[in-house]
C-alpha cells in the first residue's frame, strides 16, 4: 500500500490545479468545476488520514462535504444560467459592474 505522503502529494497537486483554475480561468463553468476539484482534493486528504490514523471521523466528514457539494452544484448552476440569460455570456471578466 502506498505511503501517506503519496496520497497527500496527489491531493496537494489536485488542490493547486483547482485553485489556479478558480483564480485564472474565465469561463464560469470551468471555474465551477475547479471548485469541485478543490473539494475533492480535500476529500482525498480526509480519506487518506482516516485510513492511516484508523479514525472513521474523516470518512463521515467526506459524506457531509459531498452532500454540500451536490447542493452547491445545483445552486451554482442555477446562478450561472441566470447570469447567461442576462448577459449572453459566462465570461466572468465581463461581470465587473460591482465597483467604485
Amino acid at each position: 500500500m502506498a505511503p501517506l505522503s503519496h496520497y497527500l502529494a496527489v491531493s496537494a497537486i489536485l488542490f493547486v490545479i483547482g485553485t489556479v483554475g478558480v483564480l485564472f480561468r474565465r469561463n464560469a463553468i470551468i471555474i465551477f468545476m475547479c471548485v469541485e476539484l478543490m473539494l475533492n482534493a480535500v476529500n482525498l486528504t480526509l480519506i487518506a488520514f482516516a485510513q492511516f490514523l484508523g479514525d472513521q471521523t474523516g470518512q463521515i466528514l467526506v459524506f457531509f462535504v459531498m452532500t454540500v457539494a451536490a447542493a452547491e452544484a445545483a445552486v451554482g448552476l442555477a446562478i450561472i444560467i441566470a447570469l447567461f440569460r442576462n448577459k449572453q455570456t459566462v465570461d466572468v471578466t465581463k461581470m465587473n459592474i460591482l465597483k467604485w
Partner: protein
Amino acid sequence: MTQLIPYIVLAPLAAFAINTFFGSRMKGQLAGWIATFAVFISFIITAGLFIQMMGRAPEERAIHYTMLDWIHVGRVQVNIAYLIDQLSIVFMLVITGVGTLIHLYSIAYMKGDRGFWRFFVYLNLFIVMMLQLVMADNYLWTFLGWEGVGLCSYLLIGFWYDENKNNDAAKKAFVVNRIGDFGFLVAMGAMLYQFGSLNYLDILGSGGNMVDGVRHAGMAMGLAAGAPILTIITLMLFLGCTGKSAQIPLYVWLPDAMAGPTPVSALIHAATMVTSGIFLVARSNILFALSPTTLGVVAAVGAVTAIFAASIGIFQNDIKKVLAYSTVSQLGYMFLALGVGAFTAGVFHVVTHAFFKACLFLGSGAVIHAMHHEQDMQKMGGLKKYLPITFWTFFFATLAIAGIPPFAGFFSKDEILWQAFSRGSVLLWLIGAIAALMTAFYMFRAVFLTFYGKPRFDEHHHTPHEVDWKMWLPLVVLAALSIVGGFLGMPSVFGAGNAIESWLEPIVGQGEHISLAMGTGAENTGLEWAMMAVSVAIALAGILIAVRIYERKRTLAADEAKLGGIYQLVHNKYYVDEIYNAGIVQPIYNISESFLWKIVDVRIIDGIINGFAHIAEIGSGSIRRIQTGIAQNYAVLIVVGLAIVVGWLVMF
C-alpha cells in the same frame, strides 16, 4: 422673612415665563399687569427684609442664603447663593421699587405696540438679572447677572428692530460692553490666582470684618497695600465698570442706547443697570482702597467724564440725548466719589440719581408720547399748559439734579463735591463744580425749550393731552422721592445723623478709612458750610444763565449755531464717535477684511482644509483602481495573503 428670599427673584422669573409662553395670546394689557405685579411682589419682600434688617444690630444685618452648590473644583467653591447686606438691599430697593413704577408706566406707554408682551418679557428678565447682579455672594454669579443685564439691554435697545438704526445702537452697546466684560473676566482670573476664591466673603472678609479678610489673605501671601496684583485686579474690574457704567473711554454706547423705548432708558440706562459699576466698586471697596493707583484712575476718569459729558449735553436738541449725556455725567460724579474713597457718597448718589433721573426720563417719555414721538426740543415749546403734571414733576426733578436745596440731588452732589475737596484735591473739586454749573444750565435749557415759550409745533393740528394715571402716578411718586430722598444722607454738619452713612458703615467704612489713611488728602471739616454755599451758588448761577438765554431771549438752535466752531464741536459730541470710527473701528474692519478674512481665513484656514481634501482626492483616485469589480482579482489577493500568512507561520 429669610425663607422668602428666593421669591424676590422667582416672582419676576415666573412672570417672565408666563409672558414668554402665553403673552402673545393675552388680551389687552394683561401681560403688562402680570409683569408689574410680579415686580411689586419682589418689592414688598425686599421692603420687608429691609425693615427686618433695620431691627437688628449693624453687625448682624447681613444674610447669607445658599441655594445650590454650583461649581466645586479643587479648592474653589462657587455656590448659587445670595449675600444680602446693607449694600445690596439698597440696590434691591431701588431696582424693585423704581422697577415697579416704571413697569406701571410702561403699561400705558407701550399700549398698542405690537410687541407689548415681548417688551414685558424682556423687562422682567432684566429685573431678574439685575437682582442676580446685586444679590450674588460671589463675583462669578455677579458676572452672570452682569452679562444678563447686558443681554436685556441689547434686546431692549433694539426693541423696535424694524428700524436699522436701532439695531446698530443695540449692537454698539453690546460690543462696547464686551470690551469691559473682558476686564471683568481678567480680574476674576487674577482673583482666582491670588486668593483662590471668588466669594465676596472669602476675598473681602465677612460683614464688619471684611478688611481683616483681605489683610489675612494679603498677609498670608505676602501682599502689601498697593501690591501690583491688587492694582491689576482693581484696574481690570474698573475696565468692566467703564463699559457697563458708561465712563470714558467706553461711554459711547449710552447716548445711542436712547434708541430704545423711553421706559427702558429710565429703568436700564439711568436708574439701575448703569449703576452696576458703582455697585461693583463699592462692593470691592477694600480691594480698591488698598490700591491707591487705581483709586486715582477712578477719580480722574470720573471727574473727566462728568465734565466732558456735561459739556456735550449743552447743545443737544434731542430731549433724550440731553438726559443720556446727563446720566453719563452723573455716573462720572459717582465714580469721582468712589475714586476719592467716599464710597457712601457714591452709593448715595446712585439712589438719588435713580429717583430724579428716572423721573426725568419718564417725564420726557410723557412729552414724547404727547407729541406723537417727536423728540426734538426745537419743535416743542409751551407744553407747560398742556402737560401740567408732567411739567411740575419734570421741574422738581430738574431742581434736584441741578443741586438746589432741599431737593435730593443737592445733598448727594454736595457730599461728592465736598469729599472730592476734602479727601481729593482742589482740581477734582473744581472740575466737579464746573460740571455742576453745566448740569444746572443744560437741564434748565431743556426745561425752557420744552415747556416754556411759544409752541413751535402746529397747535391746531394736534393738541397734546396729559397722560393717564398709569403714567403720571409714577412721575408723581418719583418726583416726591426726588424732593425728600436727600434727607437719607443729610451732611453731619446739619446736626442730624447721616442715615445712609451709618447704614453702609459696616460695608464700606473700613475701606473709607484705609483710603483716607493712604491718600494724600485729609478729612477737614472746617469749610463744609462754606463749600455748601458755594455749590448752591454754582447751581443758581447755572440756572440764571439758562433763564437769561433761553427764557428771556428765547434762543433757539439757529442762534446757538452763531457760536461757530465751538458750537459745531460740542454739538457733534467732540467727534468722539468719528474718532473711534476712524481710529479703531475702521482699522479693525480693514484688517479683518484684507488680512483676517482674505488671507487668514480664505488662504490659511480654508487652504488647510481644502488641502487635506485634495490630498485625499488624489490619493483615493489612484487607490480606487484596486477595486476592479472582478471577483477573481479579489480571490487572487486573498490567496496571496493567505500564502503569506501560512508561509509566515510555517517559517517561524
